[in-house]
């Protein structure tokens, strides 16, 4: 299947999935690194290694989809930017459409 050109998260390569988890984690408010990994593990059952976490954070920050806040006791929280909100909403809509097709085909089969 051809990759959708409007899936900007896919430009992150192997970091696209961790990046999606991070965007979802930050959707309900700012969090620092460890809180993000804990939240992702609770919500998605995926444990992000610290290297993968910061590889994805750096990429999201470089694209201005998340932004750092001032450090609090050695921990720096991050929050979604407006662009990050837009990217996340778009990606979730794509996944929803894909899931709809998948469910429909399962029902047919």
């Amino acid at each position, binding site marked *: 299947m051809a990759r959708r050109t409007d899936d900007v998260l896919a430009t992150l390569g192997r970091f696209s999935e961790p990046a999606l988890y991070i965007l979802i984690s930050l959707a309900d408010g700012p969090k*620092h*690194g*460890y809180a993000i*990994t804990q939240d992702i593990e609770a919500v998605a059952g995926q444990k992000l*290694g*610290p*290297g*993968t*976490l*910061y*590889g994805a*954070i*750096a*990429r999201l*920050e*470089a*694209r201005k989809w998340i*932004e*750092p*806040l*001032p*450090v609090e*006791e*050695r*921990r*720096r929280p991050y929050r979604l930017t407006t662009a990050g909100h837009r990217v996340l909403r778009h990606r979730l809509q794509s996944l929803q459409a894909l899931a709809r097709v998948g469910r429909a085909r399962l029902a047919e089969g």
Partner: protein
Amino acid sequence: MRCDANLLALFPPRWRERYGEEFLATVEDGRLGVRDTIDIMFAASDAWISADVRRATISPAGTDAGGRMSINSLLACRREAAAVTPRDALIGAGVMLAGSLLFKTLAYASRDTLPAATHVLTDLAFLGPFTLSMPFWLMKGQPWKAQAAIVGGTLAILTLIG
């Protein structure tokens, strides 16, 4: 802490300045297993070569007054990046070219006797010499232990997955 700081030394100086303190705090919050250690080594290699990561490490967050990080705990593994001269770049390019030729030649020579080795050598023909050339330019001036860990670790992982 010492183990975490040693792992941190694998990353480029700018990355350590920007993310080092919060990265250590994150690592200290959880338990660091073998899988996490390998993950960090991959991330360190990525941090040296990724344009995205370089862009992120020159963002204002690392230098603004409100967000300035305390880097006292990082001083032990902090090293200034050495300037890469045209000569270094040429040596790095030479290592890459010679290495690629060597890998390809070895792959060709082993095609009848050791087909498995041929496959690995062909897969490594670019990434192997690239990794070997890193000490001459990308990692110039870094502690030799960090260089050895990144080069050796990356080559070992590439060979294993090759």
